[in-house]
């Protein structure tokens, strides 16, 4: 795979059984990025993880009703920038309000957003009329 752009657009039902599929797509893309100078195995795992966490989050926040009961995920690689967007139709949440985990008193929940923030360069969550979008960016230099 050379520097050609990659655009993957996936729509899945809001069911956790599809997490493997989404994560595996990220992992395969990570392994194929010849231009990435870092540890490609680590990148592959990180993309699997970030897509899994972001999609889990979208499923958790979905409202489970109506025909919009799906999660759309787009993965776009343009030159050396990776951009992931995960759209959900739930009521949304404030990503800035998600606390950093308390490592001295670890809890069972609340580590997913921390992983995304830690492993990627930027993450934003925007509430929009049609759908909310979690946008993740990472430089692949």
């Amino acid at each position: 795979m050379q520097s050609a752009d990659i655009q993957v657009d996936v729509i899945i039902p809001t069911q956790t059984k599809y997490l493997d599929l989404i994560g595996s797509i990220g992992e395969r893309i990570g392994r194929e990025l010849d231009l990435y100078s870092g540890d490609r195995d680590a990148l592959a795992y990180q993309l699997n993880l970030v897509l899994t966490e972001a999609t889990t989050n979208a499923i958790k926040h979905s409202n489970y009703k109506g025909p919009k009961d799906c999660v759309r995920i787009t993965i776009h690689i343009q030159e050396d920038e990776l951009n992931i967007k995960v759209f959900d139709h739930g009521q949304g949440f404030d990503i800035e309000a998600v606390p950093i985990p308390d490592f001295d008193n670890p809890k069972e929940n609340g580590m997913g957003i921390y992983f995304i923030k830690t492993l990627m360069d930027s993450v934003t969550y925007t509430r929009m009329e049609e759908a909310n979008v979690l946008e993740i960016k990472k430089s692949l230099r």
Partner: protein
Amino acid sequence: MKLTQQQLDGFNVLLINEERIDAHNSGDLKAFIIDMIEESEPNIVVQLQQVKFIDSSGLGALLAGFKHATAKSGKLALSNLQPQVMSMFELTRLNRVFEIYNDLNEATTSES
């Protein structure tokens, strides 16, 4: 979720026969571990040799088991972590919480 329970040198060993632990199966894992603790001695070694991927919910399930075992004056230890899985424990500093062994032999020898 494919899980195998066995006794080894007096320890309850739980083998996870899955390559992936995520929000789809972590609930089953948590329930199984808690049942194990409730039904038998609360000393468990979870063997993760087959697991190549774990997400935050998987770590949460193991942490729930650890806390439950500790509350029952027992212990939940881990063995045979793949490098990428180990890196998740390091990222969350859960490697300081769990006792992590290279293999079951080391786990059962150290725990005796």
